């Protein structure tokens, strides 16, 4: 088994063309995912995380294009492939599940029709064994917790609840046995207990099938629970990336610190949540230098002159000039109003 990462994104730039200007939606994004690894991509709205997942699948909207960098998947550069070659990869190699399962499933066809068609599309000509495919489908659906799977194959999407539909989507994604699953906010619209069930399924799939997962979400708590590594994005760039333990116990980038401090938690009582003054700059008016400079407590002159490079500090990547970025979270009493943890 190769020790090379399954997916390596290097210096990726993505631009959206609008009537007024070209918007740099992703800038210099570096990211890698190993086999059997779950990597969480977090950020607030507008940070570019969904664009990142669309870029990997080469499913950007018509006015979006990859303007720089590479996406290495196995031994292929996805940015260099034609649409036809990409189509062959989507499904069997790279699969994606979305936030709203109802709009991802065609309401006028039964789920069996849709699942079967997907399987048939990716099999070699003339070699599609419908009976075997049906058997596998029923097995997968049952494994994912859909009762009476065989009977329900003839039902339509609207006859399933939201949680069931999301499981069908996952089944659809899994049946083709992809190496990488990209999940874009798959549980944001679901209740907590449903979310827990779906998340458990993804974790199990990772274990049993050695599947890599790129999990895009705004929910930091979910990432800390499910993912091995986390990538924090702000304004189209990666500001911090590392293992979940490192980043959550000891966040180095001021934005990451503020973000973690803004999430209420049960296991630690705080008197006050951290808030970030100001607002996210619009992509058409990005400042020179660090995009977070106007809202950061550690801004210095250099921060406004140029965009910081990514440094490797304590086994994680940080994109920040501040000296404090190299110091530990717990040694900074002024910034955080948190009871000292044990």
């Amino acid at each position: 088994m190769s020790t090379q990462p399954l997916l390596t994104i290097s210096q990726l730039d993505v631009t959206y063309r609008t009537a007024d200007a070209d918007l740099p939606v992703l800038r210099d994004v570096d990211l890698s995912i190993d086999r059997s690894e779950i990597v969480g991509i977090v950020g607030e709205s507008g940070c570019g995380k969904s664009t990142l997942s669309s870029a990997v699948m080469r499913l950007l909207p018509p006015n979006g294009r990859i303007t720089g960098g590479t996406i290495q998947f196995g031994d292929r550069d996805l940015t260099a492939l034609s649409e036809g070659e990409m189509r062959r990869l989507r499904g069997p190699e790279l699969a994606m599940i979305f936030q709203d399962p109802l709009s991802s499933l065609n309401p006028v066809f039964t789920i069996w029709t849709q699942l079967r068609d997907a399987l048939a599309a990716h099999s070699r000509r003339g070699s599609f064994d419908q009976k075997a495919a049906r058997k596998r489908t029923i097995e997968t659906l049952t494994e994912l917790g859909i009762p009476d799977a065989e009977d329900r194959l003839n039902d339509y999407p609207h006859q399933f609840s939201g949680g069931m539909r999301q499981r069908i989507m996952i089944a659809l994604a899994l049946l083709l046995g992809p190496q990488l699953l990209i999940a874009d906010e798959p549980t944001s619209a679901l209740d907590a207990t449903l979310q827990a069930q779906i998340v458990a399924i993804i974790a199990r799939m990772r274990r049993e099938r050695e599947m890599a997962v790129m999990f895009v979400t705004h929910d930091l708590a979910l990432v800390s629970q499910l993912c091995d590594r986390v990538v924090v994005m702000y304004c189209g760039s990666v500001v911090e990336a590392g293992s979940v333990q490192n980043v959550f116990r000891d966040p180095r980038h001021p934005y990451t610190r503020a973000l973690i401090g803004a999430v209420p938690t049960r296991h630690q009582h705080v008197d006050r949540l951290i808030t970030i003054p100001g607002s996210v700059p619009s992509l058409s008016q990005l400042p020179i230098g660090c995009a977070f400079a106007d809202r950061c407590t550690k801004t210095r002159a250099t921060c406004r002159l140029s965009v910081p490079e990514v440094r490797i500090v304590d086994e994680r990547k940080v994109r920040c000039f501040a000296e404090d970025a190299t110091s530990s979270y717990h040694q900074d009493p002024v910034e955080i109003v948190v009871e000292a943890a044990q």
Partner: protein
Amino acid sequence: MAIATPNRTSTRRSRLHGLSATLQQLIHRPAGLIGLIIVVGLIILAVVPGVFAPFEPDAQTISDRLQGPSVEHLLGTDRLGRDTLSRLIYGVGIALIVALPAVLSALVIGLLLGIVAAWRGGLIDALLVIVMDVLQAFPAVILALALLALLGPSLRNVIIVISIAFIPNYARVSRALVFSAKANQWVEAERALGASTLRIVFTHILPNILPPLFILMAMDIPSAIVIEAGLSFLGLGVQPPTPSWGAILSDGFQNIIQSPWAVVFASIILMITTLGFTMLGETLRDIVDPRLSGLTRRRW
């Protein structure tokens, strides 16, 4: 859980605030511009016909009857020697003086009925829908004819009759608009603040639903004009010698073989009027709220 965007823009077209913005948009579209010019022209003709008409509408010169276009009578004369052009110009006023009050009163009455039905719901609503359905089952002209037969032909009765024929559509459209407005959460928020039903309806819902209703009105005016012309053509509308276009058409038909000009020109001006109002109304509708295109339809 939906994710908010930092600067959310309205998902509808941006609301236009002020007439000037609407007007500007109107002028930029060819259909709107043409419609506006025609309608404004017609209104001017209606208000000061004397400025434009070379003759009095009932000035007869029997010796010049049934003539074609000439230098003196640009559009010819009718069977009594009256100048067609002048009669058509004075006819604008007649057309509008019937159409405008008829449609406006239909709007007001329909609006009130629609509001009451939608707000109360239940039995009152069901009853209203049934009554309006019955009324709408009759083609407008037939209904107007039947009512006129009851009331007797006169200008005033024509207005009443056309108004009655148009009320159901306004009632239904208002009802639909109020229902959808009622479902908005801000209506509930107003209730939570203590606002009375009356206040919510008249201060908040009404301003929201009036624009589409006015546009409907703009598109109903040509219908009303044509219905009036039809009634006058049949002799059931305004009585001679009032120069209603319908009357002009009717007169013209009697001598169509000798002098088709009256019929031709009366038809042309009817067509231009209808076209003008329709273009104006449809363009306005597209500017203000394209979703209305399902609600506005021709009725005859």
